[in-house]
């Protein structure tokens, strides 16, 4: 089962894993991205492109399904204002065996980071600024091209 949700609300990892459950599941890998509690960071605000976000994530999941035998995928990405310590994103993947679970989960995160239309704005000392894209994220996504 494929679940893709964009929402302001937090998510419950255990409930999302339980919902993934399939007969053949032997392995579940999850990734949770959180707002780091760092120095003067007051909050992150996540903006997105409604419509395209869901389409783009569905395309990324399609690509993952072409590569690995996925029994279930859940992607939840939060939007709006998030305080340090709060969850931002969850990727959960169920597969028969562990290697595919790890690889698919990392692939989905790498592609989410570089393809899904979200933008982060930081609040520090009462000032806001847009987070710059990181070259290392592009490199992480490129690794998958030749595999």
């Amino acid at each position, binding site marked *: 089962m494929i679940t893709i949700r964009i929402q302001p609300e937090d998510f419950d990892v255990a409930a999302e894993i339980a919902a993934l459950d399939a007969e053949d599941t032997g392995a579940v890998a999850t990734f949770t991205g959180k707002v780091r509690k760092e120095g003067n960071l007051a909050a992150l605000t996540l903006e997105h492109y409604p419509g395209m976000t869901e389409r*783009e994530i569905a395309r990324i999941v399609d690509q993952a399904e072409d590569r690995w035998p996925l029994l279930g995928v859940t992607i939840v990405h939060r939007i709006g204002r998030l305080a340090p310590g709060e969850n931002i994103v969850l990727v959960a993947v169920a597969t028969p065996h562990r290697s595919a679970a790890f690889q698919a989960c990392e692939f989905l995160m790498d592609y989410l980071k570089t393809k899904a239309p979200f933008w982060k704005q930081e609040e520090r000392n009462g000032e806001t600024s847009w987070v710059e894209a990181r070259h290392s994220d592009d490199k992480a996504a490129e690794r998958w091209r030749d595999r």
Partner: protein
Amino acid sequence: MTLLYFAWVRQKTGRGEEQLALPESVKTVADLAAFLSARGGGYAEAFADLRRVRVAVNQDHCGFDTTLRDSDEVAFFPPVTGG
């Protein structure tokens, strides 16, 4: 066509969305960016350095050489930073 702007591109142009009849001079996304930039002000700032701007046509990532039609939805935004 529908034009959409996100993140700092939206802040520069001062709006998130606008409708535009495809101008005769505009064949590609690059032409459209030049057309919008020529409005000056925030638009000129938004499109001052196209290396910093990404584009999607009808909700697909694409290049500035993409050919446009009047029915297209064209979005301009910075490189994505979600996840």
